[in-house]
């Protein structure tokens, strides 16, 4: 529960893990969402690594369920990074602001600002720039905003040219702005006085008041951003991530025969002959891809097996699942843990729950219990 014996003046970060990850089912039935591997690394680890790079030394995870799983999995990884991990348990869901109140003790130990982020966001995390910018304007908080194509689905942020936020508009019918809240903030501990210990939404019950007091600024995010809370966005986010990886660190990507475009393959995976893999594929550790398989725009998680001549497009194959020979899967099909798809089947947009064996084709998108 604690790890707060560090000295004062350190940069802290709070990650809102919360939720059951229902939108990423059936994967989250076997593993809490922050631990689902995105590009061969748990989503949470992407965030923690970026935070560490920005000089964060203490990470507080606001969790409401399955904390033990996370503790077990993450402690080792995180200690390697030289950062202390603290779990803040919610006994009841507290929304997006409540956890801050719960961790008030930890957060108010120093006057330094702290980071807050949602756990299902993937982007080029700009924590260093964010801290610099926050200090430059000297107000209570800064929100990272990102540009989206269809702002009418989200709450948009309206701000002045110097970044000072004027207002928030939920789901605007008319175009007002194309900048939305990217789910990453830096806040001064003084903000905690605006938050009570009850289920509370930071977006609706805290930020609007801060904005009206002229205490909130926005920083525009450069590069890609994706909320990977749903299978479809998970795959889109993966494509964006791999593209950015190609630009920044292309030697991490796999380069070999039969590979097309940006592909990430774990060194422990086995790839058969005559395969065509890519573009935009991540293949996890211990995965076996047999001869003549074709995989596009998919994620294959640890220990799965794609058998001969299978064809996959837009799929997430869960841990230790087996995709049979000549199987065709497409249209955002998600296989949970340990699913078996028999030979020669067709699966169109099926969401298959863990430990299931499929013996019949799934021609229409549906959930297979």
């Amino acid at each position: 529960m604690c790890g707060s014996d560090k000295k004062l003046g350190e940069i802290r970060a709070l990650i809102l893990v919360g939720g059951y990850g229902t939108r990423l089912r059936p994967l989250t039935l076997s593993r809490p969402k922050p631990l689902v591997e995105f590009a061969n690394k748990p989503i949470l680890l992407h965030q923690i690594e970026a935070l560490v790079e920005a000089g964060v030394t203490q990470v507080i995870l606001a969790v409401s369920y399955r904390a033990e799983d996370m503790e077990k999995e993450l402690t080792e990884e995180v200690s390697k990074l030289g950062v202390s991990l603290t779990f803040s348990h919610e006994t009841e869901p507290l929304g997006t602001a409540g956890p801050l109140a719960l961790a008030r003790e930890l957060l108010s130990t120093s006057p330094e600002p702290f980071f807050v982020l949602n756990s299902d966001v993937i982007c080029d995390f700009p924590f260093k720039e964010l801290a610099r910018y926050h200090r430059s304007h000297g107000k209570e908080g800064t929100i990272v905003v990102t540009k989206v194509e269809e702002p009418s689905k989200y709450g948009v942020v309206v701000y002045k040219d110097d970044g000072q936020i004027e207002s928030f508009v939920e789901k605007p019918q008319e175009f007002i702005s194309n900048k939305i809240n990217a789910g990453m903030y830096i806040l001064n501990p003084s903000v905690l006085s605006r938050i009570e210990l009850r289920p509370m939404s930071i977006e609706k019950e805290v930020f609007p008041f801060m904005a009206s007091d002229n205490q909130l600024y926005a920083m525009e995010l450069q590069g890609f951003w994706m909320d990977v809370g749903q299978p479809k966005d998970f795959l889109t986010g993966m494509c964006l991530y791999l593209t950015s990886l190609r630009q920044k660190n292309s030697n991490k990507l796999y380069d070999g025969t039969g590979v097309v475009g940006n592909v990430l393959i774990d060194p422990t995976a086995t790839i058969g002959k005559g395969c065509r893999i890519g573009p935009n594929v991540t293949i996890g550790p211990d995965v076996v891809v047999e001869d003549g398989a074709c995989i596009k725009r998919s994620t294959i998680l640890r220990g799965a097996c794609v058998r001969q001549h299978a064809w996959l497009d837009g799929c997430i194959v869960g841990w230790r699942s087996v995709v049979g020979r000549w199987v065709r899967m497409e249209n955002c099909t998600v296989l949970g843990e340990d699913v078996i798809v028999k030979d020669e089947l067709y699966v169109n947009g099926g969401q298959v729950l863990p430990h299931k064996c499929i013996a019949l084709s799934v021609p229409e998108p549906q959930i297979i219990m």
Partner: protein
Amino acid sequence: MLKAVILIGGPQKGTRFRPLSLDTPKPLFPIAGLPLIQHHIEACAKLEECKEILIIGAYTTNTMSQFVNDMQKEYHVIIRYLQEFTPLGTGGGLYHFRDQVRAGNPAAFFLLNGDVCADFPLKELWHFHEERPNALVTIMGTEATRQQSVHYGSMVRDTTTQSVSHYVEKPNSYVSTLINCGVYVCSLQVFHTMADAFQKKQDGFYSGNGQGSPHPGYMSFEQDVLMTLAGTNKLYAMQVTTWWSQVKTAGSAIYANRHYLELHRDRVSKDNPCTILPDVFVHPTATVDSTAVTNRHYLELHRDRVSKDNPCTILPDVFVHPTATVDSTAVIGPNVSIGAGVTIKAGVRIKESIILNNATVHDHALVMYSVVGQEASVGEWSRVEGTPSDPDPNKPFAKMDNTPLFNTDGRLNPSITILGPLVVFYDTQWRIWGGAILYIRTPYGPPDKYNEYKKKKRENYHAKKRLTKDLNPKERYNARVIWRIRKKNQRERVRNLNRVLERTPSSSPGFPDADTDAEQDVADQNKNYDVHQEQNVLRFSYSWSSKKGKNESEKGQIQNLSRKR
């Protein structure tokens, strides 16, 4: 002495077999590797007393002569093709050539419809007929379900004498579950009955009561002969329980294929563990099922190409033509027929399908419940999948349901998928399913890739031209000749196909439907289903499917594109 008559109809019929019947006449469509009516001929030739087989139809002699010659060589029986001058129906043609049938004074003759498939029990049928001296015609009958019996000729039989007391062709309501199989034994005296019927028809035609008969000689064997004979103690029926089916649609072809393969198996597997035609290489460690016909490594050339240590995996029953090339990593069967010159590439999976001559199936493709037309090509990682349309195995006596192409909503009924002749996939990884029918030369793939495909073709053309430029005059001449011949053959084939298409719309409206292959009958008409509509759709039907599976239901519908001349 006995004779046999096989009625095969004409090119105007077999419309529901399109596009497969466009370049191959339906009677010659290969089922289990043999033309449809070769199975009839084989059954007749097995009977020693049968000395002559007459094939009557309206196809031109040219189309049939090659086949007839081949058959004659193979079975050492006199086989002749008699061409009707105009479609005369099931009875008219037979009556027209009565002297040919009578010649040599056979004791009786078998009459077989060309579009039925069965384990023809001709010997039993003949004995049954022989035992009943006053029988003019004996019908081979089989049991059907109550619902399905109305689509066939239904007959009521006297249980003690086995004589048919009532016969009705395609009744509107249920009459009997005993149906006519389209296989008969007739005594020569049947021609007397036919003469009376013929006279009646003539009188009717010339007095203006022809009821739309296209020709005074038009006669239906079922309606004009069997119905008059029923109840006179001259018509008998023998019930068989062996497998029987009609071949009307492509779906039934796959079904028939399975059963014929099974029948062949009995014949083949008796003395040697596995049928091997010359020049086969089977590695000692290979496992070949005794029922597999592994003749695909026929040519030495192919043997080199095919990996030496294991021939492809075959799940019985499979027929592979000797000249087909099948990659060692392919998995074929059950119920697959592969025609001459077919190329099956690496990692292909084929089941429940017929692959016609010179077709190509590229790497990693899956073909199931489909017919792939002549010279068609299936792209890599493609999935060609039809809906199995076998009779319900849980219902005893259920027969193949020959459902119309479209249902009442104008949607395609799920059925076997058919790729017409010369269909090409110009992009890989596509999926076709659920009874889609691609017509002749339909390029199949995403619309945006079509221009790319055309450009590539054009480039190939110019590349070929460039190639010949650098050759010496003699070589260039040879190359050009070969090229020209190939082009010409292709053009001609297309022209022939178009000719067939152009002729068929005129197939006279109001054509009586009791012909060997006419069933655009009352039931179908009730569903607003007319021949012209079918042609329109079939000729230019592109079933675009996208790689993404969305709008699935929408795509099941065939687009009705306008007809261009």
